[in-house]
């Protein structure tokens, strides 16, 4: 009985340890860290009010249809403040392929306690056809 408990504890610790760095989207994580991580940071938390957090972001949830376009084309003149002194924009990443965008979307949507439906390549292609 004690042996069984011991084995259970060992297995539980191993699974806990390995879980920490686990993502179902390793490619997405790589592209995200390379193209988005400088500003939104590896933990998705961004920088205070200047760079919005992607973690549990209502904006992210609301903009699911536009997400592929936002990643590719950025956001122009997003006003962080009512004053015009500081107009913020998110830079475009026009070189990203549809597959890279797909990977980034799925990684962002399912990391840092975000839970959004997984997107398919077909969906990404359709959404990219309707960019502003």
């Amino acid at each position, binding site marked *: 009985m004690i042996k069984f408990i011991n084995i259970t504890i060992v297995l539980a610790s191993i699974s806990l340890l390995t879980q920490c760095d686990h993502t179902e989207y390793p490619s997405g994580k790589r592209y995200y860290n390379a193209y988005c991580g400088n500003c939104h940071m590896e933990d998705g938390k961004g920088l205070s009010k200047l760079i919005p957090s992607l973690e549990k972001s209502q904006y992210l949830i609301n903009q699911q249809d536009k997400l592929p376009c936002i990643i590719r084309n950025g956001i122009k003149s997003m006003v962080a403040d009512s004053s015009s*002194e500081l107009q913020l924009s998110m830079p475009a990443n026009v070189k990203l392929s549809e597959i890279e965008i797909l990977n980034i979307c799925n990684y962002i949507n399912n990391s840092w306690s975000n839970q959004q439906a997984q997107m398919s390549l077909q969906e990404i292609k359709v959404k990219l056809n309707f960019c502003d």
Partner: protein
Amino acid sequence: MNVKPILFLLFSIIALLSSCKPTIQHLPYLGSNKIVNGEEVRHQIRSFNYIDQDSLAFNADVLNGNIYLADFFFTSCPSICPRVMRNMLRVQKKYKDIPNFKLVSFSLDPKRDTPARMKKYAENIGADLSMWHFVHGPKDSIMAIANEDYYVPAFEDPDAPGGFDHSGKLLLIDGNGHLRGFAEGTEDEDVTEFFNTIDALLAESK
């Protein structure tokens, strides 16, 4: 001869020595010394006359006697600045109650970074402007102190993201304008270790 008392004495001495508080590490003076009028003088940040985010004078008088951490940035910097600023915010949080400790961010892009724009930026990242100054000065002068005094490589480069190439170093300066330590502001772990360096300088100046 009975060795027991000697052994006991030896162990007591070892125990005593090891229980002592570690002596405060004296930080080195960084930078190359200069010869002025035949005398060797330590590398020192030159005096300057700039303005801050409130358009108030920002010069040696404001900093004199303060330990401060400097970095170089610009508000539209898309590459390393957000990461460096996040680490500056960690430093702000840790040392916010220490009097005579300041944070100083010099803008490399004075053309776009007006004091008002820097103030908005500062407010948006959550900077405590009672301890943190955002500095505006002539571009050539800022570039010169970056490269020559703070040893931060910085230059204009149309091909670089945002138009400037620079390093994200954090520089620790003592109350007399001497450079005493530095860390890579983009590396979280380096900054965590840097807290020890800051602590050592604060202890030294007590």
